[in-house]
């Protein structure tokens, strides 16, 4: 066994000791880190897609285990009511849909998905766009269902969600096509005009037949008309809307320069004169369009990635009407109607329990997977998951009237109150443009008095040379470059200003549950009373928990992965307390202390509690004795320690805010070496702590994941959300850590510093260039084509400098 055997062959994570997950690939046994990766690698090998491993250039995410429950949920996508929102009828029986693929890391992933899906019977075509991570798939509904396609993608270790191609997306696509057309026109025309211009300049030097000059000018005019009208249209529009709304933007001088140059050249062409400036128009327009396309391209990449986060969930509910059960879309539900929530299902609306006892997982709101016991009369919240028993619910709020929707509105409000840095930049640009135009006017009037024949040429040179392109590109080019660089590392910048602010951050606040910790309980220790051996206790506990949907149950089942579990008879699930059942004729109970009837004389609880603050204890007993006590706790993320250390090494102070109890928070803080921690914080308390920090003059970055963090995320100067967190948290944050690596926070901070540095350099360069070139142009030493060249080169330098950020 060589050294690389320590790493999972599929995902590159270290292989834990003592596990044997192997798959035969390329005639060699490969080590895998978990059952998920093993399953994915096996599926890849079985389908003859091993080429993937040879061609890939980046490691995929660890394979997740496909639970039967999730497969059941996928079946909902076959429902015609659900399909209506994202499936297009491409013909009789053939359907088409756009899917978002999660987990694409390199081109080999694209190949793998295309290859595998294409060979399924009934799939007509599949095309994966590597840039946007979206797949367009067409299938024959008689032969295959959409859920089967989604399931096959999941077996390869990717996640697919139907994507509702909304109007905004369509609009962006046509816009991009239009932009490309404009560039094509400007490029083709200006290349030809440039050639003709060489003829004209050479002719002016060596002598040329006036008829030829005339001909070349007319031909140049013909070529320039589409450039000045069609290609330059966006500048006119932006300038006009700027003037109409009363503040001058950077497009005004651009539009003015193009119109002046074109009008002047037209006059000279028809009436005769010294110079035409068609080449200047072409170069100027082409270059401006190209830089803008580069900038929007990089920005759109972030927008698309952000949209990919908004998954289209099947919003179905099982309605009970006149004793009949029927699946209906959630929007058709009315207040007062009865719905049935089966164990494992997401509750579709805010409701009150009218029948049944169960516990629900409200991690959507709290970010913490913990079962909350519910009985008749209690209310449940839309988006929480029913864990144990079936619940009959009476709907009390749907859609906009749910608690969740209310929180989203709160977040929107908090966001609107954020300082608008962009607004400031706009205002500065307005003043700058005004000064520029005034200066041009003065220069023009002065030359009119000195030498009226040169006025036109000089005004044009001044307008072109001072074109604030470099200045206006200085900031967006840097933001776009570092944004697209970060996205490759799995850091999605949702709001541009975040990078500027990141550079100044000197305090980072972490949420505990789900952010510093994984958010799912794991068995961290087990105390055996000595009656049975450890393995036997584990299997008994896992067998008993098989029937339970409780989040703690998964921890037990994960612990004995792959083992054959003995059959349980007379299994009973007591929501909120535990489970009981008989194995081989012996009755066992597993649950909290009272439920498991642990003997009161046993003092071990206090001892264990001291060792594991904040842990949950689960007792396994038979009818007489305590067999074992399992200690369940929410473990820290593997990179939490390194991430906190990295931040502290950069001189950034760190604190923890959590809704959890004192002991648990203090324990985590001690482990990470964080001195400043606050426990038992409600969302409004968190916001108060944050504001106190801000009042001290700290620039605070908040890292969180739950809906309860959303208002705090929106209130911090910069906020990070974990990619595995809730949608609301992602939407209220500035930056999303798609791969949920905490160390990315430090990476983002560094990148923010780099971006700010480049932005400063760019602004300085642009200012110096403009200020130096201006007097020369005003004094008449710069001809318009030299001005256009200078403008282009200065913008190019700005863009190149920004590209260094990669």
């Amino acid at each position, binding site marked *: 066994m060589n050294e690389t055997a320590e790493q999972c062959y599929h995902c590159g994570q270290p292989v834990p000791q003592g596990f044997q997950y192997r798959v035969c690939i390329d005639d060699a046994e490969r080590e895998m880190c978990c059952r998920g990766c093993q399953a994915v690698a096996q599926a890849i090998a079985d389908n003859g897609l091993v080429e993937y491993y040879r061609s890939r250039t980046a490691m995929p995410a660890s394979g997740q285990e496909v639970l039967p429950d999730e497969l059941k949920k996928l079946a909902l996508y076959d429902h015609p009511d659900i399909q209506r929102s994202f499936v297009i009828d491409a013909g009789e029986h053939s359907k088409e849909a756009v899917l978002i693929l999660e987990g694409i890391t390199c081109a080999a992933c694209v190949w793998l998905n295309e290859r595998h899906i294409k*060979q*399924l019977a009934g799939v007509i075509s599949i095309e994966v766009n590597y840039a946007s991570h979206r797949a367009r798939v067409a299938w024959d509904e008689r032969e295959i269902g959409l859920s089967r396609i989604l399931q096959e993608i999941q077996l390869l270790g990717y996640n697919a969600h139907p994507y509702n191609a909304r109007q905004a997306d369509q609009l962006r696509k046509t816009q991009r*096509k239009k932009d490309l057309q404009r560039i094509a026109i400007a490029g083709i025309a200006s290349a030809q005009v440039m050639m003709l211009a060489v003829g004209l300049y050479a002719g002016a030097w060596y002598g040329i037949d006036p008829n030829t000059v005339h*001909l070349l000018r007319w031909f140049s005019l013909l070529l320039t008309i589409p450039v000045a009208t069609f290609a330059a249209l966006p500048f006119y529009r932006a300038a006009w809307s700027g003037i109409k709304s009363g503040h001058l933007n950077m497009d005004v001088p651009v539009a003015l320069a193009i119109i002046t140059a074109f009008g002047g050249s037209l006059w000279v062409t028809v009436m005769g004169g010294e110079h035409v400036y068609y080449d200047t128009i072409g170069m100027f327009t082409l270059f401006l369009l190209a830089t803008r396309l580069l900038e929007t391209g990089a920005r759109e990449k972030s927008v698309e990635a952000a949209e990919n986060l908004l998954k289209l969930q099947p919003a179905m509910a099982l309605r009970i009407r006149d004793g009949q059960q029927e699946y209906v879309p959630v929007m058709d539900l009315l207040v007062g109607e009865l719905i049935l929530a089966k164990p494992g299902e997401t509750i579709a609306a805010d409701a009150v329990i009218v029948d049944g006892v169960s516990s629900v997982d409200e991690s959507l709101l709290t970010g913490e997977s913990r079962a909350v016991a519910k009985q008749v009369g209690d209310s449940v919240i839309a988006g929480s998951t029913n864990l144990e028993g079936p619940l009959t619910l009476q709907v009390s709020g749907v859609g906009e009237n749910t608690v969740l929707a209310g929180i989203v509105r709160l977040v929107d409000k908090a966001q609107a109150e954020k300082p608008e840095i962009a607004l400031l930049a706009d205002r500065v640009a307005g003043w700058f443009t005004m000064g520029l135009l005034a200066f041009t006017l003065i220069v023009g009037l002065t030359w009119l008095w000195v030498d009226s024949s040169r006025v036109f040429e000089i005004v044009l040179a001044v307008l072109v040379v001072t074109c604030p392109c470099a200045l206006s590109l200085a900031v967006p080019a840097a933001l776009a470059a570092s944004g697209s660089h970060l996205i490759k590392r799995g850091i999605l910048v949702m709001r541009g200003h975040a990078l500027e602010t990141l550079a100044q951050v000197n305090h980072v606040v972490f949420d505990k549950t789900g952010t510093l910790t994984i958010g799912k309980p794991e068995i961290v220790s087990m105390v055996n009373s000595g009656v049975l051996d450890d393995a036997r206790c584990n299997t008994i506990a896992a067998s008993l928990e098989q029937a339970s949907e409780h989040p703690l149950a998964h921890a037990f089942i994960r612990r004995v992965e792959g083992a054959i579990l003995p059959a349980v008879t007379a299994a009973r699930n007591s929501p909120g307390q535990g489970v009981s059942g008989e194995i081989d004729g012996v009755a066992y109970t597993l649950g909290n202390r009272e439920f498991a009837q642990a003997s009161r004389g046993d003092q071990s609880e206090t001892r264990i509690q001291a060792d594991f603050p904040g842990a949950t204890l689960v007792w396994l007993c038979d009818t007489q004795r305590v067999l074992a006590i399992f200690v369940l706790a929410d473990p820290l993320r593997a990179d939490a320690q390194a991430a906190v250390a990295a931040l502290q090494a950069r001189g950034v102070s760190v604190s923890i805010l959590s809704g959890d109890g004192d002991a648990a928070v203090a324990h985590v803080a001690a482990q990470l070496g964080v001195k400043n921690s606050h426990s038992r914080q409600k969302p409004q308390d968190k916001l108060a702590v944050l504001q106190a920090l801000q009042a001290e003059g700290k620039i605070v970055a908040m890292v969180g994941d739950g809906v309860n963090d959303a208002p705090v995320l929106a209130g911090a100067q910069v906020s990070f959300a974990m990619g595995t967190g809730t949608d609301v948290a992602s939407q209220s944050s500035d930056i999303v850590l798609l791969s949920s690596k905490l160390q990315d926070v430090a990476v983002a901070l560094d990148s923010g510093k780099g971006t700010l540095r480049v932005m400063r350099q760019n602004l300085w360069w642009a200012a110096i260039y403009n200020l130096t070139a201006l007097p020369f142009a005003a004094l008449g030493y710069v001809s318009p084509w030299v001005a256009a060249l200078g403008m282009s080169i200065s913008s190019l330098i700005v863009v190149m400098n920004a590209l260094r950020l990669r």
Partner: protein
Amino acid sequence: MTTSTLVFLLAMTAIFIVFMALGVFWAIKSGQFEDMEGPAQRILMDEDDPMLPVNQLDENGVANKSKLQ
């Protein structure tokens, strides 16, 4: 070079430019610029690997294109 030769050459150039523009417009319209990274990478992936089950010959010597299910 007489002016009439020049007119002829420029007319030819004009036709050439129109065709070029039409060609580029068609390419944009058909979506060739939508994914700027994928195709460059895709060419490196082998589709004709004899190890792929799809490419293996069955007993009749016919390429096994039957779809998996």
